[in-house]
């Protein structure tokens, strides 16, 4: 999932610590559930020093019974905004194409992606 150099201004990159505390699990216990060797890795995720792989993120979803987008709210919001900005740009590019039913449908989808984020 790349490095966590930039953090969304409002949300924290992830909410793994609060969810682990809510379930009264130790870092070592979560590490065991994740199938990793020690709690050090979990500690690094919780301190935002490292971002988990997709497989790990899904494992966290299973453990904490919360969606990955909820657990990694800050990261999700950052990705969401970046995708929306690109969707807006692609919609503008589509506008310059020859208008037909296909481009109209594409334009509608891209506008929806962009608006869903910017209207939040």
């Amino acid at each position, binding site marked *: 999932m790349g490095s966590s150099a930039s953090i969304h201004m409002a949300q924290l990159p992830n909410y793994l610590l609060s969810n682990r*505390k809510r379930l009264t699990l130790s870092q070592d216990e979560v590490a065991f559930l994740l199938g990793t060797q020690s709690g050090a890795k979990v500690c690094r995720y919780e301190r935002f020093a490292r971002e988990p792989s997709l497989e790990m993120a899904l494992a966290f979803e299973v453990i904490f019974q919360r969606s990955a987008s909820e657990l990694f709210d800050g990261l999700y919001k950052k990705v969401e905004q970046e995708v929306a900005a690109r969707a807006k740009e692609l919609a503008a590019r589509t506008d310059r194409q020859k208008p037909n039913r296909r481009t109209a449908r594409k334009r509608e989808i891209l506008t929806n992606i962009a608006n869903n984020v910017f209207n939040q």
Partner: protein
Amino acid sequence: MNKIQPKYFRILAIAPSTVGFGFAVLEGQDTLVDWGVKKVKGDKNVESLSKAEKLIAHYQPGVLVLEDASAKNSRRSARIRKLYQRIIKMAVNRKINVKLFSRDQVMKAFIADGRGTKHALAEIIAKRFPEELNFQLPPKRKPWMSEDSRMNIFDAVALALLPRLW
């Protein structure tokens, strides 16, 4: 749909004690992000300040909430009063809003007539965050027992909720 962001998105509250301090990080309307007790040894104020600084660096709160040790009925010790001053100074240097609430204000916010025990307040807070705090609530202490350090978590959570209530 437009979401209204509360004025202070993330709030950190610190409740010092003889063994260290209890802390709570509250986000949005009512989401408890982190809570716990930081225990210190040796120079308690230096250690406490260092741990408070780490919490601030990690959570980057918009506001820091502390008990008003200068309030009329405050019975905090000289050491803790000094610690409050140092934490406030550190927060101001980092351009973090500092909110102070007296013990009376805390009690009035949660208990109808403002009169109640620390344990009664803790029970109210535990009911508000059952998933997070119910198991942390220590049994009511007997007169010969010393206070459980976990009680400071509830004080910190109560303080963290106050900027939203006042």
